[in-house]
């Protein structure tokens, strides 16, 4: 898990940076992480896409890597942070028994991706407080001090996780981001799933995207960001940075509490007999059959969601439109697999 994942940016990459370029205090720390910029020739809006906020939710990370290796910006700018909590990729959650990495077959051979932990590595940030009071004053269980998606808007002088959150807020400011999209996965027993979670300033955008997704055969729920649930990207990006903020969730059996044997197959094929049983009992918030919910389908959902959100942005705010080419098509990813779109 100490070996960094290989990411091979496509030829349309405009700039490769680090989060420490936006917040120098992160330089040389385990919180620093690569940032990829794709700028089009024509003026437009600026969109931030974040993967790997929770490194045990592989669809967000893999989707970000696919974007980095394929897209070309035509108009506006796309900034991608594929491993937002880089420290979380360096360890596993104790007592979860998860594999530390999983393979994806590509034309150039097998590639391995790390499966990390939901939270920052305790080697990098320790000890946890008894209770965690996050930068907004919300009281949480101590372990949440290492959860990036509870640490926004971050703190320049805070703990490592708060510094990473602060670095992302600095990136949003310096890159003049108009729309932020945070890619996640959730356990099938969790109610916020197959969903677009939106800040109230992005309700129109989420609804427009949902309509397009429905037309394409993807069912997405809309979930308003609860105003009293603080420290999350979809809340603080909107409240503090004033940008449109969206978070997307796909169903991932490999990090749920009902899962059977944790395995590479569970991550990739997404099949699990206990989840099947729970679905029959009506305990889940998504359909879960014998075919499971494979990673390629979850990545395809994210890709379809991203396309619909960008399309919605263009419709609602043409001056801030961001247009990209070579975005891997969701229907082809479902058929051809993820590896067909990796270098």
């Amino acid at each position: 898990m100490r070996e960094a994942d290989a990411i091979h940016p496509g030829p349309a990459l405009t700039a490769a940076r680090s989060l420490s370029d936006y917040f120098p205090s992160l330089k040389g720390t385990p919180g620093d992480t690569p940032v990829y910029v794709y700028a089009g020739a024509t003026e437009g809006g600026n969109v931030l896409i974040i993967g790997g906020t929770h490194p045990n939710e592989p669809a967000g990370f893999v989707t970000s890597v696919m974007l980095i290796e394929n897209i070309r910006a035509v108009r506006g700018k796309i900034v991608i942070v594929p491993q937002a909590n880089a420290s979380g990729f360096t360890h596993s959650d104790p007592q979860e028994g998860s594999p530390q990495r999983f393979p994806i077959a590509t034309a150039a051979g097998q590639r391995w991706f790390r499966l990390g932990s939901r939270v920052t590595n305790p080697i990098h940030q320790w000890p946890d407080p008894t209770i965690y009071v996050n930068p907004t004053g919300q009281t949480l269980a101590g372990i949440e001090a290492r959860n990036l998606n509870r640490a926004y808007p971050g703190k320049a002088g805070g703990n490592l996780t708060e510094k990473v959150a602060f670095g992302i807020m600095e990136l949003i400011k310096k890159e003049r981001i108009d729309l932020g999209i945070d890619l996640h996965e959730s356990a099938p027993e969790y109610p916020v799933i197959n969903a677009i979670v939106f800040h109230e300033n992005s309700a129109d955008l989420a609804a427009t995207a949902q309509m397009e997704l429905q037309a394409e055969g993807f069912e997405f729920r809309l979930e308003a960001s609860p105003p009293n649930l603080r420290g999350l990207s979809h809340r603080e990006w909107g409240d503090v940075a004033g940008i449109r903020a969206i978070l997307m969730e796909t169903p991932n059996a490999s990090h749920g509490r009902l899962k059977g044997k944790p395995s590479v197959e569970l991550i990739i094929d997404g099949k699990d007999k206990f989840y099947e049983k729970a679905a029959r009992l009506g305990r889940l918030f998504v359909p879960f059959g014998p075919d499971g919910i494979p990673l390629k389908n979850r990545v395809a959902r994210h890709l379809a969601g991203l396309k619909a959100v960008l399309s919605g942005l263009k419709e609602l705010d043409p001056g801030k439109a961001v247009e990209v080419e070579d975005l891997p098509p969701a229907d082809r990813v479902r058929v051809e697999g993820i590896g067909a779109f990796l270098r």
Partner: protein
Amino acid sequence: MVGVFILLAVPLKLPMGVAIALSALVGALAGGQGFALRHLVEGAFGFFDIILIIAAAMIFMKVLQESGILDSLVAALLKAFYRNKVLLLLAVMLLVMFPGMITGSSLAAVLSTGPLVAPVLMKLGLARLKTAAFVAMGAILGMIAPPVNILVMIMGSGVDMPYVGLTLPLLIIVVPLAVVIALGLGLKDLKIVSADEIKTLLPESVAERYGLRLYLPLLLVLALMILQNLNVPLIRDLGLPAIFFIGSLSGLFCGRRFDFLKATQKAVEEAMPILSILAGVGMFIQVMTLTGARGWAVTTFLSLPPALLYAGIGVSLPLFGGVSAYGSASVLGVPFLLALINKNALITSSALSAIVGIGDLMPPAAMAARFSAQVVGERSFFKVLRYCLVPAILLLAMGLGVLWLAPLLDKIM
């Protein structure tokens, strides 16, 4: 795995921690995972922080004893409260609960104020085992009581429920139980003594010699616990192990002189059995997850028909809590909270946390019972459990009752 554990622990009489660790290893081998070294090490580290807290708290307790602070504080408490037993019992219950209320840990309560109140109660006539039960139950109620209930926080983080608006539901559960359990365990046995008699009961106090500084270690620990929760810079990142250790160091300058190194060695030696149990339990859980046994157990409990769901909650949460209360809240508490999602989540999570809390009495870890037994000098915590039975049933009934009445309580609140 359970069979191997019983075989190793009962007829072969291996230390509990070793028996659990070996049964985890056998589980991994039988599950086709090989020696699974990574998983055994990773699982053991799941309780690393709690292991440090216990070790540091045990050192703190030993320092209080060796420096004469404990005896002096007991004497002061006896002098203050010996006249009115109802007031005494309620004050002592609050005192035991307090560290649990501010740390969300029953262990912190048992090991910080437990050693203070236990001698007071015993001097006034409460039997040793009943005293231990009093401390254990007070510590568990403190863990459940507001303002800090980590069990609810853990369940809340699993369903994105902010830790807001929980004070009232938690008080509804805890306050009546604290009164009933304190009086129920103590009122009959505690005796009222005369002013002359109390003098003969007082332990040797060094308070006159050292003055107010004698109380500094305890006050320092409590102050640091509170300041940590108030998010005071520097202090907020200390963590409980460092807080107990700072308290221990301050004890060097506040009371009788003693050999700190020897006291530390003795404390760690006494703590070693539970530390090894926790490491073993961590391995056991990881192997359970690795072999799919955890998923099977959770799904089985969730498969219970609605009529039996409450029975499943009442049995499984305390049982798993015997391994780890926090683990039980996370692994089972969250799915149960989701299964009851049509009810008020604040009320249901509060009630579930009360039921999870009983787990601190359950073997193999039995944190509250084990350490309260130690506080009164009893080797077997099973004897203490006898006196915890009725209070635990009351706690379970209260938890299940609040779950059942959640819609009604929701309307009233």
